[in-house]
């Protein structure tokens, strides 16, 4: 019986062994969430770097394939840790974005739940753009946590591993991010009603 083709670690090993298709399969599995994570974490101000950082991330995955140990972290956690480092290095070089981390965990504690959820509205392209802009306006730590969890489908444990914080911290960031987004989308609602 063939090994489970869905196993990320197997694909990475096969890539290391010279299987030309294994890397493409792995890439196809994660390129979308990885790219969006990079793009949203960069936000509009640094959007032009997204393609390069995305490519650098996958090159790093290829180069360091031998160092991946599935017993220590899942592949998505490893991949997003690499992507995150690329983004942070970029922002640090540009001296931007990092300042948003300071005090961010207390900033949105008092935001109330606005009530009806955003799914009540049809997600038009225009609204989609506003939602994405609201995500990009989140503090950096909340933003990366939210995108990893909500879009990339990482578990809280994987998010915590990728961002280097305890699970409780990741949980708090996710909660604050959702609250801030609900508030932002509630503010949008009258315009689309």
């Amino acid at each position, binding site marked *: 019986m063939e090994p489970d083709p869905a196993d990320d670690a197997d694909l990475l090993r096969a890539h290391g062994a010279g299987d*030309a298709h294994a890397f493409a399969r792995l890439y196809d599995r994660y390129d979308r969430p990885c790219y969006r994570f990079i793009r949203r974490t960069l936000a509009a101000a640094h959007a032009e770097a997204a*393609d390069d950082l*995305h490519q650098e991330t996958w090159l790093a995955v290829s180069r360091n394939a031998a160092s991946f140990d599935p017993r220590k972290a899942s592949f998505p956690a490893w991949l997003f840790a690499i992507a*995150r480092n690329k983004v942070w290095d970029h922002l640090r070089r540009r001296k931007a974005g990092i300042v948003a981390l300071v005090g961010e965990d207390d900033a949105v504690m008092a935001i109330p739940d606005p009530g009806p959820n955003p799914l009540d509205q049809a997600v038009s392209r225009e609204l989609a753009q506003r939602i994405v802009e609201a995500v990009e306006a989140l503090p950096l730590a909340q933003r990366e946590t*939210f995108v990893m969890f*909500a879009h990339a489908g990482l578990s809280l444990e994987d998010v915590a591993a990728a961002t280097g914080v305890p699970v409780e911290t990741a*949980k708090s960031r996710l909660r604050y991010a959702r609250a801030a987004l609900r508030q932002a989308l509630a503010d949008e609602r009258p315009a689309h009603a």
Partner: protein
Amino acid sequence: MPDHDDMPELRPDPTDEAYRRAEQALDDAAARAERRAKVLAAVALKSAPAPASRPPARPFMRRYGGWLAAAGVAGISVLTAEQVYRSSPQKQQSPPPMVQPPAAAVQAPIAPSPPAVSSVAPPSQADRQRRPGAETADLAPPPAQARPPVTLPVAPPADAAPPPPLPIPPVERPIAPPAPAPFAAQKPNAAASEAAGKIEEETVVTTRRQAAPGAAPVAVAPKLDGARSLREAAAAGRTKEIEALLDLGVQVDAVDEAGETALMKSVQADQTEAAELLRKRGASLDRKNHAGQSARDMAAGKGDPELDQALGLTR
């Protein structure tokens, strides 16, 4: 496994879903395909020079090459000096033919070889005591340091012609240990390393292991290659990937084990757009595979006017 009641963050949240849908609505399939082509091409190209395929003899040469060269130079120098200084006194003192030479002159060449010339093995302590001045010459020559002084067997006469300069200068360049591979490009940012925790640390440690001189290569040796990717893209008609690969420098007429090019693959698979693109990028119509067939022959066998037009065979 945590219960959703304990962790409300794990419950489905409408905000998450709204964001997922928003990203879906903004999805750009063309841009994604273009990114895919570029990333896979870059990975294929940059993975090619694998550390495992480096010539294994290099560490040996780096470690011993300098010593061997220095030892060779020292040996040649000593032999040259021996010849020069042996011939000079003989010339000076050589008697006319048929005349019995003085006893001393006959003895000179037969006398025990001078230490600098004859010593190969390190001398015993007794030898050193017997010949206190010859210590430097007796020791095995340290090739990377100064050339050992040559002790002349017979002092040349004052009016003798000076010996010619040694043809090969002594080697004085110190042999440095192999420089460690540069880590600057891989050096992790401190804050990012902290943030990424153990995962980052593991990556960095492995990188250092790979680069350590003399260490066995740890890295994987991906054998992806751009030429193969190009032929595969041509057979599948993935024109953007073809363009990206060619832009990255992949040879348009690179052949596989059957001698077939990307253009041949595209013709065989009826990928007219790929064939047209490859022709525009300079692919040869007349290069033949190991079976003696060219892309032109293959197209002629198909009799497809559209393909012929794409290849520029009809007007």
